[in-house]
């Protein structure tokens, strides 16, 4: 008898619905699976067979054929155990085909019949909702994550027995068996302010006038930024303060980012929505694959987990040219496409690159009483960061060591909350400006948009000319400067880019100044 069950596969950050077709017919007892399946999917046969047996159901010796459609899409992972089991049960006549209409089934089976949690539930449930299914049957361990999707009935099942019971029950009994969740997403989101209070706050940062201002501009226009300073001056602390001044995720953004975490199997179990923009700070010994994503089954890398958040690279030159150059294309395209044997997939990675580095190998330049590095050593050290990477960084400043007097009698700085107000106002202006263009931030403007939206008055043009004369900008630097100036003007609530905004942007520019003062 033929049966058909709906399940899903994850490709990159997306999910695609699958149809699992099962047929049991008389003939030599063979269990065959077709439809571009990988090893772990094939193993489903053994798990399903034993799990069914331990649930009290013997599969009759007959010819069983399972097909996964569409057949041209590679299937991986263990989520297909449960739909295969359901398909066999229907084909054996133990369940009714009608009972699975409009239901997505996904989950891994244990030999004792328990249903184990899997990765990628969130994007699957989102896709099921989009395709108009009414129910998702998922492992109980993934229930919280699945419920985050909203607008679709999500049922978490602990074991195969429960699956059978659920599918045998009538529509009205089903809700009684598993009452629909009451969590309201809007409500859960309003709670998000709570954990926010534990974040490091800018008011605890002493001094660092320039760095504070730079991070404010970076947060407002989503500009990449670089902090240079001796060891122990608080570069990491400043980075950790970033989430506090970035506007919290919108629901839509949160689902987008949480989906990536789900695929990577990194969603926290008890609270499966990422609400605070995380700061991902990989150590410089990270492998290229862990950074960009990859593997036989492509998994998102750190840069994708930092999507719409902050990627903090401390000790930037220590990452080495090879790894840094891997970031070039993702920084430009804001997504990364991994091509593997099993097909290609694309992960989004629009992250804010916040980098930090020492000014020289020993870290104390330009304090010549302490720094013993020669100019060529310093050049070599800085040379580990290739020009194209620097070209994608809009802002750069120094993080200085703070004197003992200021440490002993710290003067509280401006709080993150107040900075965030300005950042949000600047974001509001950008939203209005870019409505309908698909662009969200000043940093993402294209060349023509810069020319269009960053017009200068005669006085400003004169300033630009003298800046140009002094520093011999490239066209790219020129555009970056205008984008930064646009954000500074937005922060000041100004429609036009003024001379002052330009000057400030120039003071934060990256380039020849990054190397040396002569």
């Amino acid at each position, binding site marked *: 008898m033929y049966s058909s069950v709906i399940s899903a596969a994850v490709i990159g950050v997306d999910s695609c619905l699958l149809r699992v077709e099962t047929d049991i017919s008389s003939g030599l007892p063979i269990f065959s699976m077709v439809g571009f399946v990988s090893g772990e999917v094939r193993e489903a046969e053994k798990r399903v067979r034993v799990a069914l047996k331990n649930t009290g159901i013997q599969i009759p010796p007959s010819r069983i054929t399972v097909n996964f459609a569409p057949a041209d899409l590679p299937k991986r992972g263990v989520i297909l155990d449960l739909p295969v089991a359901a398909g066999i049960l229907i084909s054996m006549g133990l369940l009714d085909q009608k009972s699975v209409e409009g239901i997505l089934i996904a989950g891994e089976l244990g030999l004792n019949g328990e249903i184990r949690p899997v990765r990628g539930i969130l994007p699957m449930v989102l896709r099921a909702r989009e395709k108009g299914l009414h129910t998702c049957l998922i492992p109980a361990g993934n229930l919280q994550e699945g419920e985050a999707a909203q607008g679709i009935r999500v049922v978490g099942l602990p074991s195969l027995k429960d699956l059978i019971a659920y599918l045998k029950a009538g529509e009205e009994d089903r809700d009684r068996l598993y009452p629909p969740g009451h969590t309201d997403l809007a409500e859960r989101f309003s709670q998000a302010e709570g954990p926010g209070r534990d974040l490091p706050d800018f008011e605890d940062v002493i001094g660092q006038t320039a760095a504070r*201002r730079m991070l404010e501009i970076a947060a407002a226009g989503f500009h990449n930024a670089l902090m240079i300073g001796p060891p122990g001056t608080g570069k990491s602390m400043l980075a950790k303060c970033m989430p506090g001044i970035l506007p919290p995720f919108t629901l839509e953004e949160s689902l987008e980012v949480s989906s990536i975490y789900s695929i990577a199997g990194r969603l926290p179990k008890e609270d499966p929505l990422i609400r605070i923009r995380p700061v991902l700070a990989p150590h410089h010994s990270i492998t290229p694959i862990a950074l960009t994503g990859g593997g036989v089954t492509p998994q998102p890398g750190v840069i994708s987990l930092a999507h719409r958040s902050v990627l903090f690279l401390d000790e930037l030159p220590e990452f080495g040219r090879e790894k840094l150059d891997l970031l070039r294309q993702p920084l430009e395209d804001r997504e990364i496409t991994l091509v593997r044997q099993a097909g290609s997939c694309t992960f989004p990675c629009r992250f804010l690159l916040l980098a930090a580095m020492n000014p020289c190998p020993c870290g104390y330049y*330009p304090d010549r009483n302490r720094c013993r590095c*020669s100019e*060529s050593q310093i050049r070599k050290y800085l040379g580990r960061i290739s020009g194209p990477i620097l070209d994608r960084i809009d802002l*750069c400043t120094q993080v*200085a060591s703070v004197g003992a007097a200021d440490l002993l009698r710290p003067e509280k700085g401006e709080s993150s909350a107040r900075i965030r107000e300005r950042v949000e106002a600047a974001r509001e202006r950008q939203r209005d400006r870019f409505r309908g263009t698909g662009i969200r931030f000043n940093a993402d403007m294209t060349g023509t948009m810069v020319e269009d939206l960053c017009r200068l008055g005669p006085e400003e043009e004169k300033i630009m000319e003298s800046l140009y004369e*002094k520093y011999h900008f490239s066209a790219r630097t020129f555009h970056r400067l205008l984008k930064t100036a646009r954000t500074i003007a937005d922060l000041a609530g100004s429609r036009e880019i003024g001379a*002052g905004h330009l*000057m*400030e942007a120039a003071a934060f520019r990256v380039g020849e100044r990054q190397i040396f003062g002569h």
Partner: protein
Amino acid sequence: MENQDRHSAYGLWLREIQGIGTAAVLRLFDSYQKNREGRKEKASPYDLAAGLEGSGFACALYQMGGRDLAGLTREAFGEKGGEKYMRLLLQARQRDPEKALEALQKKGISYVSLEDPAYPPRLRRIQDMPLGLYYVGRLPDPALPCAAVIGARIPDAYGREEARRFASALAGAGIGVVSGMARGVDGIAGRAALQAGGYSLAVLGCGVDVCYPQENEDLYAMLQGRGCIVSEYRPGTKARPSQFPPRNRIISGLSDLVLVVEAKGGSGTLITTDYALSQGKDVFALPGRITDRLSEGCNALLAQGAAMALSPRDLIEYFYGVREEEEKRGPGAPEGLSDLEKTVYLALSDDRPMDLFEIEESIVRMTGRKTGTGKLLEAVMMLILRDLAREEAVGTYCRKRDRRRD
């Protein structure tokens, strides 16, 4: 071949004999002169060096009959030593001096020997003068006043700025700047002098065709065109640590005075000042704070009686005497700045790079008011654009003194 080239060719031939140095040549010349003039007493090296000028002695050594040569070497070095030098000379006589000079000139390198009237007169008067100099570029005019500007290889912002300022002012006043083209102060001084349109000479501790250190490639190229690069070592000689102290005697020897910009205690720079003092040259040193390690050497020199270099004017007056037209300017910001820019200009330091936080604190001390970070950055950038400030390392700023005041 012209007369001058003849001197050069035979001088070069004598220089390139392995095992014969200045002292040996002077001894040979002493005996040679004694025979010719019938003089009994030994002459001083200085007189000998002066006597060598235009003497054609190298040519004579090359052409002298075998018996005369044997007699000369025996007289100069005694029985045993004489034989050794005789052998060296005879072996060397198989080479063609003019061909060697041609080969050298093909590489664009010139040679001036002690016999040559073009040999720098100042150098002829020092102890252990080199037999000759390989050079590229133009040797200094004997009438040109010269000052050596030397110092630490890794100077701080203060040393860099002052090296630049002093060298530039000296060059502007028509004084040649001599240095070692080393990293740090030497290189900065040479560069600044050339950029100010003046003359600069670098004495290398390697062959003149070797650019060491590599990072001074730009200076090396500029010196060839508008200054001079000299060395007593044969072209192709690589830089070796043992060659640098002896070259310092040439740096001081070619200069009228030596200015030390920054030096740690025990720095190689102090070797040059020792040479300078033994050669009877004046030493100037730039004072620094007693806690700065990079000023230890300078301050020690001052304690020992070196002249204090408080401004380039002190050195220029050393050469030309006091000039009258110097006008005194009180401290203050230049005209045409906004109030905030003026305040920032005054808050900045000439030589200690300050970051924004420090500038802000300094302004609060001066005016009691706080300025927003954005406004502050704006003002600093404006000063940089008007060439009144400069960015030292990223995010740290120094005042640039008004050029007209030097």
